[in-house]
């Protein structure tokens, strides 16, 4: 291993003149850059959290909606012995149901039908609002 002792005799180099100054000026530049990046990331984080808060407030207070889980819980509750009728949910908004109608079969020629007039009369005031599946 005598040859390897020569490793210590290998030519060595030194830092160039003005190295310290260059490092310090580089340091101040890097500090400024880091401050800029920190400000940018803080403002981005602020904007993101504001958007998140707005979304949460919107969903909780402005757009309340009953989930299917809530309805299922209510049905369970109504079967329990301590249930009171006042706890029943209020009738919800009317759900319009549209049905496709084939008018080709509904409208017939007047000449083939007897001249009868049908009067449609309302027979009950109650409107069924619950939908049963």
């Amino acid at each position: 291993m005598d040859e390897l002792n020569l490793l210590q005799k290998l030519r060595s180099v030194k830092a160039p003149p003005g190295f310290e100054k260059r490092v310090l000026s580089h340091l101040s530049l890097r500090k400024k850059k880091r401050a800029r990046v920190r400000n940018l990331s803080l403002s981005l984080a602020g904007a993101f959290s504001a958007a998140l808060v707005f979304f949460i407030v919107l969903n909780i207070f402005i757009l309340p909606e009953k989930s299917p889980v809530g309805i299922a819980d209510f049905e369970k509750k109504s079967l329990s012995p301590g249930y009171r009728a006042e706890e029943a949910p209020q009738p919800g908004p009317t759900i319009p149901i549209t049905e496709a109608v084939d008018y080709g079969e509904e409208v017939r020629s007047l000449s083939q039908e007897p001249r009868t007039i049908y009067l449609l009369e309302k027979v009950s005031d109650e409107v069924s609002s619950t939908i049963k599946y």
Partner: protein
Amino acid sequence: MDEQELVRQIQDGDEMAFAEIVKIYKNKIVNFLWKITGDYQKAVELSQETFMRVYFKANKYKPVAPFSSWVYTIASNLAKTEMKRSRKFAAVPLDDVQNHLPMEAYASNPTDSGLLTNLREALNSLHPRYRIPVILKDVEGFSQEEIAQILKSPLGTIKARISRGRDYLKKELEKASSKENSFAMNEEYQDG
């Protein structure tokens, strides 16, 4: 002033203490990185980056190990990354490289013996995995335990790498000297 005290001051953001650390380590780190990379300009750039990291990551330094080991850890990590990166982009035709080499690159150091030149060439051809531990051990004078700490590798691995690296260097030196001998013998034969 004590190095640990300087580090504490750097942790508080003191630039004067940082300048002091740069002053102490600049030549050692530039030399170490030059021996690893073989490129002075690159060594200077990597040294600058090493000191930047020393300043900005000073809070991560734990005084369980010597400060010098920590600085060398940063420097060797940067060197490894740089060498991996440069190996990726090293696909340049040899002719182009030869045509763009500065004249000083060909000029040999007059005080340098042939053995040292061969040793440097062998060192440059050694894989960084072995080159870095060998340089840390035989040039910088760190103990094997310290090198294991610097390179974050098990002690056994470091011992094996140092041993393999040395074996490789020895073989390369033997090869180079036998070539030189045969060349000299040829010259003598031709001279008559």
